[in-house]
């Protein structure tokens, strides 16, 4: 009887296998020497308030409650939620800010842990986006276009750069639920658009099946599955010999990869062998499967295994009302783990070639949505400026880029499009964003559409 290894190699067409699965990089890639090999994106879904976290505006206290001057608002369009509002009272943050590290970066008291790694970060205060609502804004952020149909960043990178791990997908998505007001996610945010669907993000979930359909049915042992796959391999091999269709050879290899995933994924998700100090570093939540903190540990484990693009989504940042209360929850759930991830990657020597990006789809307004009181206010969506940070992988540490005006309403220095961030990130991965294209409907599409430029100031 033919062994598993036997039939894998008897296939005369074995050489064609490389073209399938998650595979090798595209010809010609990387375009230049890469600083980074992978990305962990800590996406804070809903639009975290830059005003309460990073963009310190001490002068706002003086104009508290006053209507936002027209000279600042400049007739900019508002969402349908505050367009009806009669006044736009200026709402300074209720949280205390201080400077941190040698770089003297300003951060609010909500981020005590991030504050400690301030010198590792590139803080970008001058991001702006096209969209004013969640769905188009997240779709824009992740695919470079507001409407559905284009591939997500992770799909582009898997397509272009291939995989460095034959046992895991190259693009993994991890979702956690926040305690604040949540907005919906959609498959398209990690979808492959017009790229082949094998490049779509694979959602890892907490619980029995980290990947859908991963576990064998109850009562069906790993031994039985091995036997099953050997038998299956033989049947497929017979068909391959008769039909000579390389797709059959690929099918055989995909079943073998599935089998490897049945081991590699649970092994990856099993945190029981993590030392106590890991959980201490990431905080008490990190013991709860599916939490943001646990996902941060998973992200590190995925990075260790060479997964190309690791996309976290943490929901709950949409603070239209009761912002002070809700944003506190959100920060409690994320601050320590985000910072721990940076420290952890650094300790393991992974930060040099791993890009970590933190941020959401837009910022929030300086004026209060709804009533402004001593302790309470809300903030509407604000696309004209927001803050993100990046670390590792060739980003310049201890650097703050861009400035906003006194109201954190308009950008006054070094504006950055989302496309610019993507172009810069791709640059560090060895990809020229203008040259990673895919022809669809007669057009050579790319992640940055017809926009985007690498921002040299952000590079180490």
């Amino acid at each position, binding site marked *: 009887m033919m062994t598993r290894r036997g039939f894998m190699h008897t296939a005369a067409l074995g050489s064609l296998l490389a073209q399938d699965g998650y595979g090798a990089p595209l010809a010609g890639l990387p375009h230049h020497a890469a600083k980074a090999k992978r990305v962990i994106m800590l996406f804070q879904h809903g639009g975290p308030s830059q005003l309460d976290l990073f963009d310190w505006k001490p002068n706002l206290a003086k104009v508290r409650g006053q209507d936002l001057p027209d000279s600042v608002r400049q007739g900019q369009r508002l969402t349908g939620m505050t367009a009806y509002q009669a006044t736009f009272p200026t709402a300074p943050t209720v949280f205390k800010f201080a400077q941190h590290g040698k770089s003297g970066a300003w951060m609010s008291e909500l981020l005590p842990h991030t504050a400690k790694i301030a010198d590792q970060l590139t803080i970008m205060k001058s991001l702006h986006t096209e969209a004013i609502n969640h769905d188009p804004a997240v779709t824009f952020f992740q695919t470079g276009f507001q409407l559905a149909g284009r591939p997500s960043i992770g799909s582009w990178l898997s397509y272009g750069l291939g995989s460095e791990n034959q046992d895991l997908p190259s693009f993994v998505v991890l979702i956690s639920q926040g305690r604040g007001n949540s907005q919906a996610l959609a498959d398209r945010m990690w979808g492959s658009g017009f790229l082949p669907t094998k490049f779509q993000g694979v959602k890892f979930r907490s619980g029995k099946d980290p990947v859908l359909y991963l576990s*064998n049915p109850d009562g069906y042992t790993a031994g039985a599955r091995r036997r099953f796959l050997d*038998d299956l391999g033989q049947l497929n091999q017979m068909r391959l010999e008769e039909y000579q269709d390389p797709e059959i050879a690929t099918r055989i290899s995909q079943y073998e990869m599935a089998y490897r995933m049945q081991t590699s994924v649970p092994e990856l998700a099993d945190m029981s062998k993590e030392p106590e100090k890991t959980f201490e570093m990431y905080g008490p939540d990190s013991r709860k499967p599916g939490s943001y903190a646990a996902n941060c540990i998973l992200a590190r484990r995925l990075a260790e295994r060479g997964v190309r693009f690791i996309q976290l989504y943490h929901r709950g940042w949409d603070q239209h009302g009761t912002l002070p209360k809700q944003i506190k929850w959100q920060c409690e759930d994320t601050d320590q783990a985000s910072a721990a991830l940076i420290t952890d990657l650094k300790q393991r020597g992974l930060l040099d070639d791993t890009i970590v990006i933190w941020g959401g789809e837009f910022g929030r307004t300086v004026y209060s949505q709804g009533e402004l009181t001593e302790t309470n206010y809300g903030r509407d969506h604000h696309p004209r400026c927001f803050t993100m940070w990046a670390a590792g992988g060739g980003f310049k540490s201890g650097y703050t880029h861009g400035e906003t005006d006194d109201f954190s309403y308009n950008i006054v220095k070094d504006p950055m499009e989302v496309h610019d961030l993507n172009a810069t990130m791709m640059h560090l991965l060895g990809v020229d964003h203008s040259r990673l294209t895919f022809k669809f409907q007669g*057009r050579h599409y790319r992640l940055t559409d017809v926009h985007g430029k690498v921002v040299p100031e952000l590079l180490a």
Partner: protein
Amino acid sequence: MRTFIFFALGVAAFAADGKIQFNRDVRPILSDKCFMCHGPDAKTKGIALRLDSEEAAKRDLGRGRRAIVGGDVAASVLMKRVTAPVPAMRMPPPATGVQLTAAEVETLKNWIGQGAEWEAHWSFIPPVKKPGTIDSFVRERLAREGLAMSGPASREALIRRATLDLTGVTPTVAEVDAFLKEGNYEKVLDRLLHSPRFGERMAARWLDAARYADTNGYQYDGERVMWRWRDYVIESFNKNKPFDKFVVEQIAGDMLPNATFEQKMATAFNRNHRGNTEDGIVAEEYAVEYVVDRIETTSAVFMGLTMGCTRCHNHKYDPLTQKEFYQMFAYFNNVPERGRAMKYGNSPPLMAAPTETQQKKLAAMNAEIARLDAKVPADVAGQRAWEKTLAGAAAWAPFGERDAALPFDDGGAVGRIGGAKLFDGNTVVPGPAKSAQFDIEDRFTMAAWVNGSGTIATRKSSDGYQSKGIGLFLEGGKVHFHISSQWESDALKVETEGTIGEGWHHVVVAYGGTRMAEDARIYVDGVLQKTKFVSDTLYRPFVNAGGKFDASLKVGGGAGKDKRFRGLLDDVRVYGRELRADEIAMMAAGRPLAELAGKKRTELEEKQLRLAYLETSEVWRQAQQLRVERERFERTFPSVMIMAEAPERKKTHLLIRGAYDKPGDEVQPGLPAMLPPLPAGAPNNRLGFAQWLVDRRNPLLARVTVNRFWQSLFGTGIVKTAEDFGQQGEWPSHPELLDWMAVDFMESGWDVKVLLKKIMLSDTYRQSSKTTPVLLAKDPDNRLLARGPRIRMSAEMVRDSALFEAGLLQEQLGGPSVKPYQPDGLWKEVIMQDFDYVQAKGTDLYRRSLYTFWKRTAAPPMMMNFDASQREACMVRENRTNTPLQALNLMNDVTFLEAARFIGQRMILEGGADRDARLRHGFRIVMGRGASEKELGVLRGSLAYHLDHFASHASEREEYLSYGDTAAAKNVDRTELAGYAAVASLLLNTDEAITKE
């Protein structure tokens, strides 16, 4: 890598005879590498040279310099520039990242050397039918490569291929046996073409093209109801509706003279796009997106053009201008729709779309009402006698659904009819318990006699004007009415334009339950009033996401203390239906009935008395009750969103850079100039556009359509870029064959079944799909068709065939979408409101996959694993990948485990007594062919292993058998069942099981 091999072959092969053909060889180079700057949009970039027309490309550029001089390579500036050694001089400019390959430069050189003969782009010229057959065109092409067709596929392979292609499931063992015996292939095709499964199979791909889904998409992604249109598609294919008719109905069925119910329903095609319901959106922005989506979809599906490119600028490759985009936009911009879609359910315009069963029941109800009406006695004498018995202050009020009545006859004040109640600005009178429990989609009417000012009646969550609920007011002589879920972004508010004077007036609001301001009608003294729509954005039910709303009716207040009524109210009535205008007029004429008895009366009063008397008739009451029931029944009809024309044509402007808020010049509806004009007599509107699409002179529709059917059989179209027949699209592998089929299709009266049958009867289709190293090297993607198609089944086919083979498939045409097995929590982790996946029970678990509920933002995972389109946008190209997730899906998903269990059971119950016979039977069920000895050997080993294992592990056996809701047959040994189920699972996981060979 593959693509590269094919292109290498393609270019070399095409040039085999040395003669360069412009369309085939040169245009693709110019288009892909040069048109970006030197194309139709060159002028806006300030570039003088255009290469997209012969005249422009060969004209004198000054001082006798010409880009292209036929027959003179040396004089052609183009050649100098593409071969310039100095980068600064070279075209394309190195900075663009676009480069010509050496082979491309050679092609350009040879073409110019041969005379630079130009051709119009092939797909913009009407197709011509050259003599030949499908096979002759294919053979001729193969001969040029020194290749020949493969031999015929085996009968088993052929019937399986044809059955999958026409019905989407595998053939039964009996069907294969019959074909093996009779060998009458044409008869098989006829049987399959007449199977109701045919329409389901054809509809599946049409739903991808039409971006059909059961939810609205975008952020909330709430449910919508479009399945009646899906069923229309299935039915149309099954009835073999001529394809041109099918197209016209879907584009403009509503505008056809005497449009039928079905023709109107067909227009849902262009309402299948996503609808944004988010609170914060700017509605105008999305109103534009919907029209753009219609154009992108319509142009891709029916024209093979990428019109979307011209939304912001002139097309970079095809002769389409931005202005032409907006001219076409104007055809689709005249729908009375809104930018913000309804959060739950359908958004207008829509129509009730009863199913056939419902239509039958409705007809029966109508007949019964007519029968009862006929039995109502005239009985004039009886009425006279009855009139004499009348006394008291009771006035006439319409019959049926009387939800609350407060006549205030002992109210202590003199009323309009009998007594009335005086409201002093502090009084609020509660309505009867549990009355007026309406939500925003219910029909209702509120009526009162009013003499004063303030709140007439409300049903509100708290005592405030802006609180959630319903309110009717008279303020400053104007009647106001509102329904509000969230002041004031989610509310409907109307007020009368005119004012009314002091004294008694009869005030009514009648609401039709459509959530639209236009559907809240206000009557004063029986006359319908003109109203102003103060707010018209109601969309969220009071009982949003399962919440409670049990506020009760209040008269004279309930909307804030300052608004309480001051004055007299009399005869306040609430109905659970929308009263008709004539009923309201009669109410407004109201006097106590006793006052009318025996007196001289107006016509309305006469009618009132008559109706009041009829209420004493049992038969009449039955008829009226049935009318009420009929209305309630009609409310259960599914609706469907359709196209309609606004009464006044909406203006269309060119949008600068495609932005909704940057209108440019106004444009009129019109067609791209490069295509033929409207056919004679066709109106210049959406209907004319549809007639133009199907006009014989239109070069695109027939080609694009036959190409898609070809793709559905062979996996790849003759034009691989099924969505793009423009200059950037791929050159057809068999241009003459494509044109032959296109013309033949039109000549046949656009007969889809005839087209499919012709293709499937060809030798080309009937070839064996076995390949050889030589063929793989020369033509890995089988574009030349030297072998039959061997492609992985679509997602629907994979699931449907497994269920069918298991005997689990529940075949029922049409109906609401269903929710089969899906892993827990998939919706929960991404959605924001309480809209959870509630898995079906019983037969709905086993319906065909095209009936599976499609949530755009969290699509069915099995379908997505097998490359289904996400349905966010139109998709006409078929896409196949081969991934480990598919392997996990087939091995471990309950759907396939249960199917395996039932195939295993069939092996035991139908296969005979001995193991080999059972194994052979199972193999035939799944593969449609007999197992070889070697294959049987593997199955034997597998069975023995599993029997042995499960015999000694009873609890594991029971666990393994526990998957799926349908219980196994009682008379089957459990260990045997588990063993054969495991073998069946093995069969379902083979490459062959999920491949059309």
